[in-house]
């Protein structure tokens, strides 16, 4: 198709939107409500361009043969500026003062807005949830959170209510987030361009604990953090910063820096043993993984028929947390009371998980990747120039199997490596299960253990999860992650997080695994030591008590 773009005749694909055509030709049009993988609703009216003299939204408009597109006319520029100005009326000018990197601030610069002539017209109460906090006073009604919740996650916890200038985002029946069927995945936070939704911060509490001389404060770090924390300090996505991260936390004043990878290895031991036990018993199949607290809430709210299909394993950081407060406390001769365990997680749902009553939690506070970066910045630590350090012993030894827990399919792969070797008592020559890797929504595969064909599958992102659950009875073993991409795309990860960045973070974890000498959880010497000294064997009475949990029925509304 032939069109004119800024007075230049060009050839273009008529099935592409004006935004994409401009992008192909080196013109980036400012946008706000536009979101990857979601059909545009054209709410924000920022990406306006002129088509044949009329203003149209470039995100949703397709060209016609011979269309004249102008992107830099005064009319188009002014229109973008006015709509930004109208948005700013209620967002408030605080965003100009704070040095925040949110998209609205960038937009202000892009459209060159300096005048603010409109007054605030409404006021809202803050919604303080247990994991996710919303401040509608900052909201500009772009609808990205609503679309994410409905179309990517298929949870439908939030939507618009009210009309005219009073339209606002809210959980149903104007309830607060804590009392609706929100799974606390935090994907809405990643997609909010103005910081109106954020995690419930626990930085202050952690700083207070650190300054308390009587407390022995321990930090434990999730597998995916090493591949994403660097982004907060200017590293390219997919840079592994394990050594710097450990050194920085030690400088913050944590007594010990432990690795949740070890917890992941423990999870694999328990989960693989549970799976082998089910194979012997003949079911119930499928067995579904429970590392993801978002998925657990998802299941408790919407799929209560799956209770006996769920593995009873706690998530890795909860396993390590309780081991720290029992096994390590005994070893180091400390009282459980005086130990404070802080988990650094890519996740907002973990905040909720650590408060569950069904679960004897060893974790006191959970910080997201973003909060962890804030904490490091709070102590004025020069992250880029700090020297690499190693995790503390004993709970700091990990395997490649644990590292890949951070990516979708990783838990399945790690569990299969161990289940195969323990089950068959033979060596697994090639530990790579490539079918289960990658960003496809649902991934499936087969493996033979003791002559029996095991069908396994993994899904990530709520919409895919719903699809897989519908056909789950065809499988023996299923891994579910609520966030797209698994933990590397978690709701607590640095902003921006998009498919491209998720892929880079995942690739970093897989390459770290392939370089590891220890690639199977049951080879981890500390795991062996813990079983020998403390837990006896997987699924022993003691292990059941400390490392396993129960689930609770929750309302769909």
């Amino acid at each position, binding site marked *: 198709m032939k069109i004119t773009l800024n007075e230049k005749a060009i050839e273009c694909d008529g099935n592409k939107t004006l935004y994409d055509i401009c992008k192909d030709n080196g013109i980036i049009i400012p946008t706000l409500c536009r979101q990857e993988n979601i059909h*545009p*609703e*054209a*709410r*924000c*009216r*920022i990406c*306006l361009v002129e088509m044949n003299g*009329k*203003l149209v*939204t470039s995100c*949703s408009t*397709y060209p016609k043969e011979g269309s004249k597109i102008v992107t830099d006319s005064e009319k188009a520029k002014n*229109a973008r500026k*006015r*709509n930004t100005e*109208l*948005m700013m*009326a*209620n967002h408030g000018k605080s965003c100009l003062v704070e040095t925040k990197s949110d998209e609205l601030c960038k937009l202000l610069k892009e459209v060159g807005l300096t005048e603010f*002539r*409109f*007054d605030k*017209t409404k006021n809202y109460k803050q919604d303080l949830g247990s994991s996710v906090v919303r401040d509608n006073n900052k909201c*500009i*009604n772009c609808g990205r959170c609503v679309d994410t919740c409905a179309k990517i996650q298929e949870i439908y916890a939030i*939507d*618009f209510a*009210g*009309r*005219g*200038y*009073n*339209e606002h985002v809210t959980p149903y029946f104007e309830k607060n987030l804590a009392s609706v069927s929100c799974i606390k995945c935090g994907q809405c936070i990643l997609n909010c361009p103005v910081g109106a939704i954020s995690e419930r911060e626990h930085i202050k509490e952690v700083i207070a604990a650190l300054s308390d001389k009587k407390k022995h404060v321990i930090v434990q770090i999730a597998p995916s953090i090493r591949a994403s924390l660097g982004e907060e300090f200017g590293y390219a996505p997919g840079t592994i910063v394990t050594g710097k991260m450990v050194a920085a936390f030690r400088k913050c004043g944590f007594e010990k820096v432990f690795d949740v990878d070890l917890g992941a290895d423990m999870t694999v031991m328990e989960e693989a043993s549970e799976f082998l036990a089910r194979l012997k018993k003949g079911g119930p199949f499928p067995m579904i993984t429970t590392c993801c607290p978002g998925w657990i809430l998802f299941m408790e709210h919407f799929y209560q028929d799956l209770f006996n299909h769920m593995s009873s394993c706690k998530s890795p950081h909860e396993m390590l947390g309780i081991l720290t407060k029992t096994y390590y406390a005994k070893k180091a001769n400390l009282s459980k009371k005086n130990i404070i365990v802080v988990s650094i997680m890519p996740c907002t749902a973990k905040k909720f998980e650590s408060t569950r009553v069904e679960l004897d939690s060893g974790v006191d506070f959970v910080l997201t990747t973003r909060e962890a970066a804030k904490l490091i910045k709070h102590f004025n630590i020069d992250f880029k120039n700090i020297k690499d350090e190693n995790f503390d012993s004993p709970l700091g030894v990990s395997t490649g199997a644990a590292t890949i827990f951070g990516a979708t399919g990783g838990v399945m792969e790690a569990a299969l490596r161990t289940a195969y070797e323990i089950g068959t008592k033979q060596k697994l020559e090639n530990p790579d299960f490539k079918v289960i890797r990658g960003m496809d929504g649902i991934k499936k595969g087969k493996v033979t253990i003791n002559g029996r064909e095991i069908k396994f599958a993994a899904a990530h992102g709520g919409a895919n999860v719903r699809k897989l659950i519908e056909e789950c009875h065809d499988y023996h073993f299923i891994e579910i992650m609520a966030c797209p991409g698994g933990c590397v795309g978690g709701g607590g990860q640095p902003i921006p997080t998009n498919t491209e960045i998720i892929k880079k973070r995942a690739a970093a974890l897989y390459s770290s695994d392939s370089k590891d000498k220890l690639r199977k959880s049951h080879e981890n010497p500390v795991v062996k030591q813990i079983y020998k000294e403390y837990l006896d064997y997987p699924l022993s009475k003691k292990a059941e008590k400390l490392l396993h949990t129960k689930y609770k029925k929750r309302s769909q509304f």
Partner: protein
Amino acid sequence: MQIIKKTQLKALKVARTLGPLGVIETLNKKRVVGRGGASFPVSDKWKYAIETKSDKKYVICNADEGEPGTFKDKLILIKNPETLIEGIIIAAETIGASEAFIYLRGEYEGLLKNLRTEISSIIKKSKTNVSIKIVMGAGAYICGEETAIIKSIQGFRGQPYFKPPFPPVEGLFGKPTVINNVETLVNIAQALGFSDYDPDLRLFSVSGSVKKPGVYEFKVGTKLTEVVKKAEPAGKPKAVYFGCFGGCMEYKDMELTPENICKEECIHGAGTIIVVGEKTSIIDMAYIISKFYTFESCGKCTPCREGTIQILLLLKKLRAGKGEKKDLELLKELAMHIKETSLCGLGQSSTNHIISAMHNFPDEFEELIKR
């Protein structure tokens, strides 16, 4: 009045013998256009729906007559529901739909019972396979917009969405859908049923400062003074409003053709005429209408959601005598901005009344900043 003449299933018979393409041809020849406001040729709309292949198609009758000062559809629903239902059946059979909906304005609940009886009797008599359901609106003005109707019938928030895809290609439940106004559907039946059908006749809802407000039928191009005189103005008229969204112009001797009205920065729309007397201030009118739009904006897109309230605040300031020249300029700029950048017809026309008032009654606005 032509509009209340009943076709008594003659039109349906004609339509059945003509076949879909014959019906389209006849409607095209007889110049039947949409009476909801856009005056889009019916034959074009239907042609898209016929050409789109689908296992299911729908017809929606837009009876959500929410425009202030408009009550012509109500008259039809009371006096000639038979012909309307026949029109709906013709539409459905022509495009190949088996289901049709009447989206009835929430406030017209009183008409529901009679309409239901008529539907079942006409369906029985006409021996059609088409089923007609009535869906009640809940009072939102935006639900007169066709894409908002689609969302509302599907059970979602009544908010418009971006076109294309246009409803005749992808509409209700993702299937080809024809949406026509009540008056249009009656016109369709009459164009097919009567050989002496006059396409130039249309309905005018006249109200405001008149002694005999009501629905009148005139030819397109009738003089404004003639229309208003029929309703007997109370006192000397100063201006007329073409509904809230059409804007206002000075009361004068002018033929009511779309071109003439456009010259006055107004839109003819659905044949609404609100007469404003000498004693009424245009600024007060602007304030009241702005209040209406602030309340009725659905809130989906930025310019309409944030803009309408800012217009109201500006008018409040100006009316209180606290305005300056720059406020008037901002008012004009904002009004144009909302018109040019809003998503749907509501937003795009929500400031017509300000733009036309500032164009036709500049003195009244200047007066505000002299104090």
